[in-house]
């Protein structure tokens, strides 16, 4: 029984559970199934109750329940980029479906952003988007896509003011203007923030309010998309499943915007949220899009290492350093940055790639801290300076038995951001017609190294641009036809993975853990040919062999193993793209450091593109390089 739901134009509140219920919220939807009309909500509730009482899905029940949805634009991922994309698409008259694997406005990386968002507002000192652009290019080590970087720098101030109108309470100066700080790599006081360490939380709260009150946006939570559907070279929607019930879902749409974030969850030590598993890169590659510069993974230098700290993101020391400086000391208690050419001027102003290199090198030389990092000390500062800068965050430190006036903490680089990603034009469109991307998942704007504070603009500026462009191309066209078996292969995979396991293989979670360890140890901040080849071979094996032999418990309701199987599939594609790119770039540049090729070569000042051809990752930078 295929159930077709009309997309009502009526107001839908933000719903927060499975697809079906949220798409029906209090309404009777008509089901077109021959001429029979059923109270659909009742049917779904009954099905859910039945499911819940057994926890086990009838063996052949999958085909009974395909939830079929339609929209002009479907936005995949409910972080900053996705919510902005939805808002702008709706503003341009598109009927939008906004999806998240977790909860829209809660999952994703935006909500975890603690502080800096770069915007040339010139509220503290003279500044301009042109100067921001110059700093961005300088940080990008020659590989930025100038058009995308320019869009980012030009668009950011407007978005910051728009967010202020939506009640984001940017930190202010006494004169009422927005307060801006100078983050590492910037030549001006340019970064705005919300106290205390609440920038991402405030942005997400504002965007949740905007998306939930917009009658053109339907929010679907706990929905795992598994594949894009492409027909005649054009994106016509996507398929996936409702995590709450494991029911298959199809969404027909004239445009799809991928805003599903990076793939940093594929590294053991990471600042990323649980759902940043490379889904967008995997889906885009399989759909025929190209990715660019995947070798550039930003390792955040001041990542928290010890003691164990919970209730606070491990990125917390960077904003703290922007405010307070702080002294970085090796295991012998010596300041060491001058050894790496950074003499400092009392401020924290070291570029991220240089700082990561310095910390790794100090630890490798046997001068690390107890847990294998370096010490970060604020002990030279008076306690009232700490209280003024950190406010209630001090309490969180106390709950973790950390007293900054008495002790240093230990830090070590941690996987943080994917500079590379899906290749798009200035409309945020990929080379697959109708397929757009925005946010961290887009490659090019940041080149080989991202400037601190450029991630949030990349989300909110590109998100809005993608939403507008997608709506303009999608609205007014008839919905795409899915006849002739369109989407059948993709749906069939969901059915096969859901079917009771025939093997006693390991769980997807366990293989994911192995992949994350592999990426951390072999594809980290310092790479060699030998390590990369080992990683590539194992990833290839996982993708072509292990993936088929994993055991998934036969549970329909919130079966995390099912989600993880698809995350692993995407993560392996994304990880392989990183490894292949890293192997081909036989030089060191920005965030990509090769111990066997430590120099930067002018001949390599080119972008690297990868596409998936018959299941193989094919790069345009192969052989002996350029």
């Amino acid at each position, binding site marked *: 029984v295929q159930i077709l739901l009309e997309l009502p134009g009526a107001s839908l509140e933000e719903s927060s559970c499975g697809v079906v219920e949220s798409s029906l919220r209090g309404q009777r939807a008509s089901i077109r199934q021959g001429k029979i009309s059923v109270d659909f909500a009742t049917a779904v509730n009954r099905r859910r109750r039945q499911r819940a009482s057994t926890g086990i899905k009838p063996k052949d029940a999958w085909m009974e329940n395909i939830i079929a949805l339609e929209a002009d634009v479907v936005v995949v991922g409910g972080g900053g980029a996705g919510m902005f994309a939805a808002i702008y698409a709706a503003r341009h008259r598109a009927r939008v479906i906004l999806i998240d694997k977790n*909860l829209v406005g809660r999952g994703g990386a935006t*909500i975890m952003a603690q502080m800096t968002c770069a915007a040339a507002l010139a509220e503290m000192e003279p500044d301009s988007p042109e100067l921001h652009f110059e700093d961005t290019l300088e940080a990008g080590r020659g590989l930025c896509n100038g058009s995308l970087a320019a869009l980012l720098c030009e668009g950011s101030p407007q978005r910051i003011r728009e967010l202020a109108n939506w009640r984001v309470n940017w930190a202010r100066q006494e004169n009422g203007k927005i307060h801006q700080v100078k983050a590492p790599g910037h030549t001006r006081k340019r970064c705005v923030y919300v106290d205390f360490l609440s920038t991402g939380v405030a942005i997400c709260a504002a965007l949740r309010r905007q998306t939930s009150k917009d009658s053109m946006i339907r929010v679907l939570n706990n929905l795992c998309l598994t594949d894009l559907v492409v027909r005649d070279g054009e994106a016509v929607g996507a398929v996936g499943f409702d995590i709450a019930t494991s029911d298959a879902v199809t969404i027909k749409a004239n445009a799809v915007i991928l805003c599903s974030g990076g793939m940093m969850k594929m590294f053991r030590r990471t600042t990323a*949220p649980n759902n940043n598993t490379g889904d967008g890169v995997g889906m885009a590659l399989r759909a025929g899009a190209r990715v660019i510069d995947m070798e550039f993974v930003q390792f955040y230098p001041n990542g928290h290492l010890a003691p*164990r700290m919970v*209730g606070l993101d491990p990125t917390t020391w960077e904003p703290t350093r922007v405010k307070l400086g702080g002294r970085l000391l090796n295991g012998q208690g010596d300041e060491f940055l001058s050894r790496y050419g950074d003499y400092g001027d009392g401020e924290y102003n070291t570029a991220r790639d240089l700082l990561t290199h310095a910390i790794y090198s100090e630890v490798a030389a046997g001068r690390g801290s107890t847990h294998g990092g370096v010490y970060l*000390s604020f002990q030279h500062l008076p306690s009232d300076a700490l209280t003024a800068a950190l406010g209630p965050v001090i309490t969180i430190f106390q709950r973790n038995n950390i007293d900054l006036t008495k002790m240093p903490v230990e830090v070590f680089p941690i996987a943080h951001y994917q500079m590379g990603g899906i290749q798009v034009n200035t409309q945020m469109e990929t080379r697959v017609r109708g397929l757009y991307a925005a946010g961290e998942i887009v490659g090019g704007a940041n080149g080989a190294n991202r400037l601190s504070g450029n991630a949030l603009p990349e989300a909110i500026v590109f998100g809005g641009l993608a939403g507008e462009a997608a709506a303009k191309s999608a609205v007014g066209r008839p919905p795409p036809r899915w006849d002739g078996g369109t989407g059948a292969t993709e749906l069939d995979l969901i059915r096969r993975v859901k079917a009771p396991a025939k093997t006693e293989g390991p769980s997807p979670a366990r293989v994911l853990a192995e992949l994350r360890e592999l990426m951390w140890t072999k594809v980290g901040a310092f790479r060699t040919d030998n390590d990369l080849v080992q990683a590539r071979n194992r990833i290839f094996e996982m993708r072509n062999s292990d993936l088929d032999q994993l055991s998934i*418990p036969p549970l329909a309701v*919130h079966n995390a193993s099912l989600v993880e199987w698809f995350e692993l599939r995407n993560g392996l594609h994304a990880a392989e793209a990183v490894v292949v790119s890293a192997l081909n770039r036989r030089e060191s540049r920005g965030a990509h450091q090769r111990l066997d090729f430590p120099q930067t070569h002018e001949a390599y000042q080119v972008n690297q593109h990868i596409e998936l051809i018959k299941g193989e990752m094919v790069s345009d930078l192969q052989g002996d390089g350029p």
Partner: protein
Amino acid sequence: VSGTVYQAASMRSARLRIWRGTGPENGHYDEFDLEFEDGESVLDGLVRLRHGAAPDLAFQFSCLNANVCKECAMRIDGAVEYACVAKLKTGVTQIDPISYQRVMRDLVIDPRKRHTTPS
């Protein structure tokens, strides 16, 4: 380096008593022994169980220990708390869903009706 220099934290042992099931009349407790390092969260422990002894355990989170996504609320020793900030302790810790009436499976509740948040 002056002040406290950390020693590698010692490992301790916890017993997690976790409610499993799909409805008010359809549930039981499973017990798991777990080694942990001082300072680790209940969420750290649950994630570890999923990788080993309980691959089918259902619970939800996104941000992992940053306490911003607010998805990991559950009942820990009777009190509603976020698993990402509650610390593991030696001895028995009982973990229940926020509400049996709204439970979908194990520790996952239907968030449409989620109104209880930790204080």
